[in-house]
């Protein structure tokens, strides 16, 4: 099994850390992982994206043109990466601020109103974990226990108190994801 | 009564004839030779060795460290 994922959105939305937690979760269950960020002087509010690969085999290219799954968190990212989803692949997006929704007919499309849900929680920083939860509902590639372990590995101990909140957000994501179209 | 008396030995093949020792000697002991060494330099020598006090001024200003200095205290006896 190899899952090639692109996560893209505004800088500050937690795109890179969502990828990192996903990778750590993969490490926890003995998988090969690769996390390849767009890097450089990315400002808060600029665009950020990260390629995440989880596989049971040695991972080949960290640089990809097409993806099994795209998790897209703003219009720019949707416009850029919708065409990059492999036919039969999965596109998950957050509908907040989206004026042009995904149009492809040959891919599975899911929507989660993560930003809206995050606003209802204690902090909007839970946004990325809600979207991670939504993704794991669609494709449970990593077990939830391993996500918890991954969270613990990726967070410095001073943030351990935030783990329950993050778990809550992931659970919320599992609940709110909506299937728009399935191939 | 004691008197200090010195002597210098110049490694003349290594002397480059800069003459800094000549002007540094308070007793005007040192002069330059008329002949030259293998490198073609006139070299320093003690022209008035009896006047040397062994103060070592010449040696400590010598850029090439070619001067060695010796010194003794000698007793001068009055001849009755």
């Amino acid at each position, binding site marked *: 099994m190899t899952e090639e994922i692109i996560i893209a959105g505004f800088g500050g939305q937690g795109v890179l850390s969502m990828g*990192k937690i996903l*990778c*750590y979760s993969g*490490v926890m269950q003995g998988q*090969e*992982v*690769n*996390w*390849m*960020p767009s*890097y*450089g002087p990315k400002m808060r509010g600029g665009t950020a994206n990260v390629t995440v690969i989880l596989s049971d085999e040695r*991972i*080949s*290219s*960290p*640089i*990809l*043109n*097409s993806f099994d799954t795209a998790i897209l968190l703003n219009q720019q990212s949707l416009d850029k990466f919708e065409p990059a989803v492999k036919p039969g692949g999965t596109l998950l997006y957050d509908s907040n601020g989206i004026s042009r929704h995904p149009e492809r007919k040959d891919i599975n499309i899911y929507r989660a109103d993560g930003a809206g849900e995050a606003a209802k929680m204690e902090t909007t920083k839970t946004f990325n974990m809600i979207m991670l939860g939504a993704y794991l509902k669609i494709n449970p590639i990593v077990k939830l226990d391993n996500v918890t372990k991954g969270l613990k*590995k*990726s967070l410095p101990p001073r943030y351990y108190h935030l783990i329950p909140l993050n778990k809550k957000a992931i659970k919320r994501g599992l609940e709110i994801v909506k299937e728009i179209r399935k191939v | 009564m004691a008197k200090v008396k010195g002597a210098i030995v110049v490694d003349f093949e290594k002397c480059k004839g800069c003459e800094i020792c000549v002007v540094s000697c308070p007793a005007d002991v040192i002069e330059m030779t008329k002949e030259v060494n293998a490198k073609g330099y006139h070299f320093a020598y003690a022209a008035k060795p009896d006047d040397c006090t062994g103060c070592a001024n010449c040696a400590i200003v010598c850029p090439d460290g070619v001067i060695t200095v010796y010194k003794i205290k000698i007793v001068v006896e009055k001849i009755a």
Partner: protein
Amino acid sequence: MEEFQLMKGNEAVAEAAIRAGVDGYFGYPITPQSEVMEYLMAAKPHERTGMVVLQAESEVAAINMLYGGAGAGKKVMTSSSSPGISLMQEGLSYIAGAELPCLVVNVVRGGPGLGTIQPSQCDYNQATKGGGHGDYHLIVLAPASVQEMADFVTVCFDLAFKYRNPTLILSDGAIGQMMEKVKFAEQKPRLTKAPKWATTGKTPDRERNIHTSLDLDPSRHEKFNEKLIRKYKEIEEKEVRYEKILCDDAEYLFVAYGTSSRICQKSIQLAREGGIKVGLFRPITLWPYPKKEIRAMTNQIKGILTVEMSAGQMIEDVLLSVEGKVKVAHYGRTGGMIPTPEEIVEALKQKISGG
């Protein structure tokens, strides 16, 4: 046994350096490798092993700090990216000329000039053909994964001390910035006993140790150069490293190193799905270059595509290796652009395999 960690290539180099018992790191910040010194400063290696970490005033100063530290018999290293590595060429030439060991990590970005900060392989010629003035070589290793970024630190120091020669890890922004699983070796102690050539103070039982690259007598200096040439020959004979992937039945060959070799592995998958039997030859040592091994492949294959994130630099070494036996073409992107697996397959079809 220690568990896997998830780390950026840059961070892995730093942690590996501490574990390898490196005595001194001297560096200057530049994207995309600043995490190396940031990690080192945060990891407090002076408490863990006594390792010295110093932010120098420039790359020029940093490489000359390596020159000093290497002369003192210590394991010293720096890291930088392309423009900074250019500034270090002076010091590298001196270190090679004085026959001293050190490690330089180049996390390459697009050039020329200030270029871009995105990954590139445009420093191949600089790394493998000398780089600075004079007839000399660096021993150059090209990692293709975060694990190799870590592992090659130790490999390079072993080679550097064995041959008294500077070594270079030629990486790029992709490998520096990406995170993968990495397992580190056990902590090695730092060098406690200085090599006999080290400038540690002349004791009465030995002659003074002098490190210099200067000799005003050309005939003597020629003899010294001949000694270097013999050393480089020996390295070429003994230290070549490479990896072959899916070569057994290959009719065509990708030759690629580092990031592009990773991309080529995906391309192989795509090409084989389309019926083209292609394999990958990945040089790990870029100098010494695996010439014999690539030449040996020419009995089996019909053509080679070198894939480089450059205008085509390594292709010259491939051409020299195959001596005209098979067709060799190049595909690459420049300026920090990265070729995609699909592009590479397309290039293979157009330039080599047809169809």
